[in-house]
C-alpha cells in the first residue's frame, strides 16, 4: 500500500518538476531571445552592467 502511494506521488511530482524545468528554460530562452533582438547600443548597456555584477556585493559593503 505504502509502495503504491509512493509510486503514485512520484508519478504526480515528476510532471511538476518537468514543468518547473520547462518554465526555467523558457525564461532563459526568452531572455536570450530578448537580448539577441536588442539593438547593439542596448546590448552594450546591459553587457557593461552585467560585467559589473560581480562587484555588487563588495560595493554594497563599500
Amino acid at each position, binding site marked *: 500500500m505504502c509502495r503504491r502511494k509512493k509510486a503514485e506521488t512520484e508519478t504526480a511530482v515528476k510532471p511538476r518538476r518537468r514543468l518547473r524545468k520547462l518554465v526555467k528554460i523558457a525564461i532563459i530562452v526568452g531572455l536570450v531571445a530578448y537580448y539577441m533582438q536588442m539593438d547593439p547600443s542596448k546590448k*552594450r548597456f546591459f553587457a557593461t552592467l552585467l560585467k559589473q555584477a560581480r562587484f555588487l556585493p563588495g560595493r554594497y559593503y563599500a
Partner: protein
Amino acid sequence: MADYDVIVIGAGCGGLSAGSLLAKQGRKVLVLDQGDMLGGCCSSFERDGYTFDSGASVVEVIHSIEQVFELLGTTLQKEVDLIPCDPVYSYIARDGSRINYPYSVEGKAELISEISPEDGKSWLEFADYFKGFLAETLKGFFSSPMNSFTDFAQVFAKTPGLLKYMPLFLNSYQGVMEKYFKNDLVKQSMAYQAEYLGLPPELTPGVFALLAYSEHEGVYYPKGGMIAIPGALKRVGEKLGMEVRMNTKVDKVIVRNRRAEGVVLADGTEITTNVVVSDINAKMLYLEMIGEEHLKPLSRYGIKSYELSLSVPMIYVGVDYEPPLDAHHSIISPSMEELADNWWNRHRKGLMPKEQFGLVCWPTKSDPSLAPKGHHTLNIILMGPYHLQGTDWDKEKQSFLEGAISYLSDFAIPGLADHVVHADIATPMDFERKLMLPEGAIYSLQQDLSASTVFRVSSKSKSIQGLYLCGSSTHPGGGVPTTIASGMIAANLIDQYE
C-alpha cells in the same frame, strides 16, 4: 578629550555643507583643505583681471541647496545672488547653425516642432513625464541616505510615486531619448547632457535623461562666479563656529580598533577628533589615507572595483570682444552614436576625439563684472582621457590649447583666435595635482547603475566607525546640488549615530 568633535577633510561643496550643518548642531568643526581653492571643482580664480570658474559652470535643481541654507537658518537667495540663464543652452552644430533652447518648455516645443512636428509633440510628453519624475525624486531621493536596501526601500515607501519610473532604471539615456525622439538633429541636440555623468548616452542610466528636462526648471549662475556658493556655505558655517583651514593637507586618517580618531597633517601634526567626514575621492581616502588593512575584505574588494569618472581638460580664455554666442552655455555635440564610438574606440584607448565636442561656458554673459569692461571670459570644457596613448598631458597641453582655440574659431566662436588676451588650460593631470582628484576624475567615481544608490560608497562607513563620507563619491553623486545634499545626508547620519 578630542581636539574637535568633527574634522572634515576637503572644503568642497559637500564638505562645507556637512561642516556648516554640524556646526549648527553645536559641534566643534574643523574643515581642512590641501589647496587654496575653496569649493574644489566648484570654485573660481582670477588671472590677469579675468575671473574663471574652475569646473562647475551653472547650478540647476537647486532644491537641495535651498534646503541646506534653510537648515542653516538663512536662505539661498539671501546668501547668493543667482542670475537666471535663458536660453538654457545653445546647441551649435558642426556647420555653425544653432538651436537656442529657451527656459520655457512650450518655447522649446515650438522650436523642436520647426525641425520635427512629431518630436515637438513628444518633447511635451517627455517634459511632462520627467517633471513628474523630478517632483518625486525631490521628495526624498536626493536627501536620504542610501547605505542599505532598507534605506532604499524606505525611500520608495515614502515616495511610492517613484515606482512608476522604475522602467528608467532598465533603460539607457540613449534608449529613453530614442523612445521619445526620432529626428537625428533633435536627438543630437540633447545628447551631451549624458556626459555630465561622465559616460556616453548609451551607458548612462535612463534616469539621467531627466537632465534634458531639469534645465527647464531653472539654470542659474551665481554672481561673482561659482565660488559664491561654497563661499556662502563657508561664511554661514563660520558664523556658526565652523573653522576652515586651507592649504592644510591631510596625510592620514588615524584609525585605531576600526575607529577614526583623528588625522595626521602633511607636516606631521596630529589632530584628534570624535568623527571624521571625508569630502575627498573615496578610493583615495580608503586606500591611501586610511590603508586597506583597516577595511573588511568585502569592502576592500568593493572600493578597489570602482572605476574613476571622466576627466576633462578645461580651457580658460579671456577675450577683448563680445564672443558671438547666444547663451551662457553652448553645447557642441555629435550624435549619440558618435559619442559611443568615441567612448569605445578612442577615449578608452587613450585617444582624443576625432572631432572635439563639449561645453562652452560664457559667464560674463550673466555676470559682466567677471572681466574688465568690454572684455569677456570663456570656460571651455572639451574631451580628452587622462591616459593618453604614447604621450601625456604635460607634453600635449600647449598644442591642445592652441588647437582648441583654432577649432572653435572655425565654426563655434568666430573671431576667437584673434581676440585672445589670456589663455590657459587645466589638464586632467593639473586637476589631479591641484585638487587631489585621482586621474582628474571630476565626478569622482563613474556613475552607472552598478555604482549608484546602495552600490555607491556609503555615507556612513561600513568598515570604520566614526567615519562618514560626502561629496561626489557618495549618493546622490557628482554635481553641485548633489554634493551639497550629500553633506546634509552625512550631517544627519552623524546627528543620528554620534
